[in-house]
């Protein structure tokens, strides 16, 4: 089995691409069976990415490629970059890759996109299989929150039942305009589960400047598409896991009321939610605005978790915008329904981020004796917390897997998995998949 990885950085996408072709495809003897390409979003123009992907396809001799744009990309053998690309190429008789699929209207029709992945699973007859897919990510243009203002009317607060229906329409509109990920990503996971899919890794592309994010499949470059494939094998096993930094828990609070269909929280601890939210995290409004306006008003350092019946504590992000009285959260409707609505705050730290990356990799590799490669979808907010210590996080993953095991880390705008027949939709987390050989039958790994 040949697996080659590399990361290059350059102000010109053409030079970065040329270098990565030389470094990675040059390492594979012949034409690779499959590739994952990740670029940073700073090159902006769609046509630039189209040219770059076409060049990789031409030079590698295959169109079996998926990928997207992420604020930073990293591989096991290189330090992360915020201005360049990472590539992972595979050639193996033991590992099969279904021809990648894409669905270009995923925000509005997540079920149709999920159907394409389901078909890949059904068409594949190998013993062990797992999915890998990428979606568009959050995109909050400056006026995005104005559209949310109608959720804040007295009418909406009084007649929540009716507004849950309107909330669904607003959700659909938000999806169409590309604001959030929650509304469609969880639906994809549920659809995969309904069709018997046991394991899948997913992540959202994102541009932290909210200007452009792209997804790649073959030579196609999309702006609002899901792209994905299936890895399968009779000899290799696939282990999945996820983790987040829950080391520093502080206060708890109750999500008293909200529009569940649009993840909009009206009251916390039976008080107006924005006021109470700032009270709980103990930050004055002006300081909050100053600190978080650059990151779409999301309080990334103050992560909240909600206990789900099926999945334990699930982290979510809260967005507290000055024009809104309520708080926007990234809680899927179904999780809010099955939870006790008591949320906990977990303060994120650089050390905690590193430790959770190690936990994720270790746990994903738990049932695997000889890891062969790994794929990690790591929240871009964790990237902002880690800063130039991001490299340490990848060193921790290498320590967990073995220093010579190739892996790729994509810093995403949403992380989601199906792990042992359970959906995991979590914010500010790291999700991982490790492939390798097991001497004994694989055990179910539950983190």
């Amino acid at each position: 089995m040949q697996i080659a990885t590399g990361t290059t950085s350059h102000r010109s996408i053409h030079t970065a691409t040329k270098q990565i072709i030389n470094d990675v495809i040059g390492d594979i003897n012949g034409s690779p069976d499959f590739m994952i390409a990740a670029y940073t979003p700073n090159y902006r123009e769609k046509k630039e990415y189209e040219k770059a992907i076409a060049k990789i396809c031409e030079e590698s001799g295959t169109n079996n490629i998926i990928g997207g744009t992420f604020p930073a990309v990293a591989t096991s053998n290189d330090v992360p970059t915020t201005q360049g690309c990472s590539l992972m190429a595979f050639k193996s008789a033991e590992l099969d890759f279904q021809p990648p699929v894409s669905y270009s209207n995923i925000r509005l029709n997540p079920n149709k996109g999920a159907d394409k992945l389901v078909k890949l699973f059904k068409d594949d007859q190998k013993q062990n299989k797992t999915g890998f897919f990428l979606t568009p990510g959050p995109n909050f243009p400056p006026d995005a929150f104005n559209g949310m203002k109608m959720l804040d009317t007295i009418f909406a607060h009084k007649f929540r039942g009716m507004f849950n229906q309107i909330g669904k329409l607003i959700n659909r509109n938000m999806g169409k305009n590309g604001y959030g990920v929650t509304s469609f990503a969880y639906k994809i996971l549920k659809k995969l589960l309904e069709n018997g899919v046991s394991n899948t890794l997913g992540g959202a592309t994102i541009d932290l400047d909210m200007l452009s994010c792209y997804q790649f499949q073959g030579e196609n470059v999309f702006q609002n598409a899901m792209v994905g494939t299936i890895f399968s094998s009779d000899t290799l096993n696939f282990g999945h896991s996820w983790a987040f930094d829950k080391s520093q828990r502080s206060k708890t609070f109750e999500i008293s009321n909200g529009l569940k269909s649009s993840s909009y929280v009206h009251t916390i601890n039976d008080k107006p939610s924005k006021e109470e939210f700032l009270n709980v995290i103990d930050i004055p409004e002006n300081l909050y605005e100053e600190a978080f306006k650059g990151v779409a008003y999301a309080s990334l350092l103050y992560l909240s978790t909600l206990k789900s019946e099926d999945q334990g504590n699930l982290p979510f992000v809260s967005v507290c915008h000055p024009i809104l009285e309520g708080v926007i959260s990234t809680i899927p409707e179904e999780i809010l329904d099955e939870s006790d609505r008591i949320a906990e705050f977990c303060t994120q730290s650089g050390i905690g981020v590193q430790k959770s990356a190690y936990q994720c990799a270790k746990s994903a590799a738990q049932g695997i004796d000889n890891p062969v490669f790994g794929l990690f979808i790591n929240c871009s907010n964790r990237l902002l917390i880690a800063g130039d210590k991001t490299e340490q996080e990848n060193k921790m993953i290498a320590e967990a897997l073995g220093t010579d095991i190739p892996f790729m880390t994509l810093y995403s705008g949403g992380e989601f998995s199906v792990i042992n027949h359970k959906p995991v939709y979590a914010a500010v987390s790291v999700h991982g998949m490790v492939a390798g050989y097991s001497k004994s039958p694989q055990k179910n790994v539950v983190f």
Partner: protein
Amino acid sequence: MSSKSGINSELEDLTHLDEVEASILFRIDGNVVDSSFKEKYSHKLLRTIQWCKANVDKVSLEMKSGNLNKVTYELNEFCVIFYVVNNITILTTISSKNANLSLLSIESKRKALLLVNYL
């Protein structure tokens, strides 16, 4: 690629980032090894560069004594990141005040590691 053009190419990469106004490779005595600027630069930027040049020796001494790899200054108009390249050179990245310093420090670190190869 020659040492001179290699250094200049790495500095240009940094300057090409939207929020970066200038990147300068200083010797710790304040002499400039190489530099790269955005095409349009202001007097305020030149004053900040002068400030960097005047203070790089003190900053490097502080970094050496405190065993620091990176020092960040958030000035009124600009942010300045000093990153140790080797014993005698420091990479200085000057960005707009609204720059995402977490992301910028990742790239500064990467460039500092690459610049060592040319020195």
